[in-house]
């Protein structure tokens, strides 16, 4: 695989003096789905905006399929489609016209067949002659996607694509994303829905306070950090973990009402039977047991809090 986007030492300091990005290095491979995770204000949108040409970087370099985004902006930008976080449309134009406009703006000659297919795929066909102002919020978002795909980009940026989106559109959107990926389109998305990144993305990057703190294959990340957790609700509150259990990596939570034990479900010995016997021997009764998987969210929160 060859990198389709390579970001080297990109920094951004806004005119206000606010540092949005500290030396970001990132490569995105051709055809992958890359998810950028991070809390609000972490720099996700700034990074995307720099690659797409909406924000000028303070220093560093970005190559899109080998084209420098500043010197060879035409070649670089022609490959990119962007669906920004906010809906921004010419509300007086018709759906069909605004989608055609986008295709032209990106230097492509009219292709009615492609536009028609796009409108059908996005369930906009019936509304193609309606003015944007007449559409619902969900339909407007579909128009934003149609515009971004109008020039058949090789790279698609989706900034918070499912924030405030209904179930149907979310399902349709992931359907489209999968189909695009099958056609070899590279997709970079930012999301707050960590389950989505987990489900959709090949790789995940975590960005926090302007620094890219982790880039990992989603599966490997889950394997490496995706431990399971046993929560033991004790019958009677305990003040401290008894010395007899000192050998176990236990944590006391919920004001002494819950013992937490993290274990590796893939290990030959999870240690659970021995732990339960030791609990009994130490005189600790329990009323409930619960196991859960540590999600990408836990990993993420752990990473971000670990840096606080």
């Amino acid at each position, binding site marked *: 695989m060859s990198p389709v986007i390579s970001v080297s030492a990109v920094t951004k300091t806004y005119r206000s003096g606010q540092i949005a990005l500290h030396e970001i290095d990132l490569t995105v491979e051709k055809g992958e789905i890359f998810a950028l995770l991070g809390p609000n204000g972490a720099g996700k949108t700034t990074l995307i905006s720099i690659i797409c040409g*909406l924000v000028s970087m303070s220093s560093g370099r970005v190559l899109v399929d080998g084209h420098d985004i500043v010197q060879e902006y035409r*070649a670089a930008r022609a490959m990119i489609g962007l669906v920004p976080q906010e809906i921004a449309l010419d509300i007086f*134009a018709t759906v069909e016209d605004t989608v*055609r*406009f986008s*295709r032209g703006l*990106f230097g492509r000659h009219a292709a009615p067949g492609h536009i028609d297919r796009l409108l059908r795929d996005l369930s906009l066909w019936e509304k193609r002659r309606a003015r944007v102002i007449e559409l619902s919020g969900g339909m407007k978002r579909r128009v934003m996607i149609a515009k971004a795909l109008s020039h058949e980009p090789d790279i698609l940026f989706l900034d918070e694509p499912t924030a405030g989106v209904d179930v149907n559109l979310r399902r349709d959107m992931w359907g489209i994303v999968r189909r695009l990926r099958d056609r070899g389109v590279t997709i970079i998305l930012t999301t707050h829905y960590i389950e989505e990144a987990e489900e959709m993305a090949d790789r995940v990057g975590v960005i926090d306070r302007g620094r890219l703190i982790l880039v990992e294959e989603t599966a490997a990340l889950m394997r490496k950090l995706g431990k399971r957790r046993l929560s033991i609700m004790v019958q009677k509150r305990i003040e401290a973990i008894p010395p007899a259990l000192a050998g176990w990596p236990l944590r006391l939570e919920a004001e002494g009402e819950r013992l937490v034990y993290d274990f590796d479900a893939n290990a030959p010995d999870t240690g659970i039977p021995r732990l339960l016997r030791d609990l009994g021997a130490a005189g600790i009764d329990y009323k409930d047991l619960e196991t859960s998987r540590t999600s990408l969210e836990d990993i993420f929160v752990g990473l971000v809090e670990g840096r606080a």
Partner: protein
Amino acid sequence: MSGLNLPGMWAIYRTEMARTRRTVWQSVATPVITTVLYFIVFGGAIGSRMQQVGGVGYGAFIVPGLIMLTLLTQGISNASVAIYFPKFTRTIFELLSAPISSTEAVFAYIGAAATKSVLIGLIILATATLFVPVRIMHPGWMVAFLLLTAVSFGLFGFLVGIWAESFEQLAIIPSLVVTPLTFLGGAFYSIDMLPEPWRTISLFNPVVYLVSGFRWSFYGVGDVGVRVSLAFVVGIMVLCLALLWWIFRTGYRLKP
């Protein structure tokens, strides 16, 4: 992809012209009605009591000034709205992310604004011929002034649109700067009719040069030399282009 982004320029031009068609009454009928009102008031009611100015009947005398006035206000309002509105609705992200150069985008936007101004100018000219005898002594110069003014004030409007951060700011330049300058720019009189020091002060008003040159192309008389007028229009255009070049180089009010 290399070379010009012609489909991109065409897309912008077409969309801008479509905007005009959508608002055809406001865009075309308003200036025509306004002009007819001017003719009734200045040409009919007052003009009948006025002497000839420079050998030209008063009604015919004000025709070039009226067209100039419309070119200025229309050029500024069209181009400023064309760029301010995408900023306001945030649809400008698409323009900034597109493989189109600033020059190409300006060319398309100004081309559309100028097309509209020139069309309205010609409609007013046609309307005027219904009221007064209009003759054009120097058609070549007339077309040159028409085009250059439409383009220059399109560029000026574009600058206003980029600068403006609110609808109030968008309206302030045309209403507080351009309208007074136009009314004091000799559209309805020759500055020779003014007493000193107003005559000399008028020479600092750029609109005087535009109206004078344009009127010269009609009747062969002007307040200032036609070449001076031409130099003024070109000067305004160059100044606007230089400012635009600086804006796109620094990303002023377009890119954070």
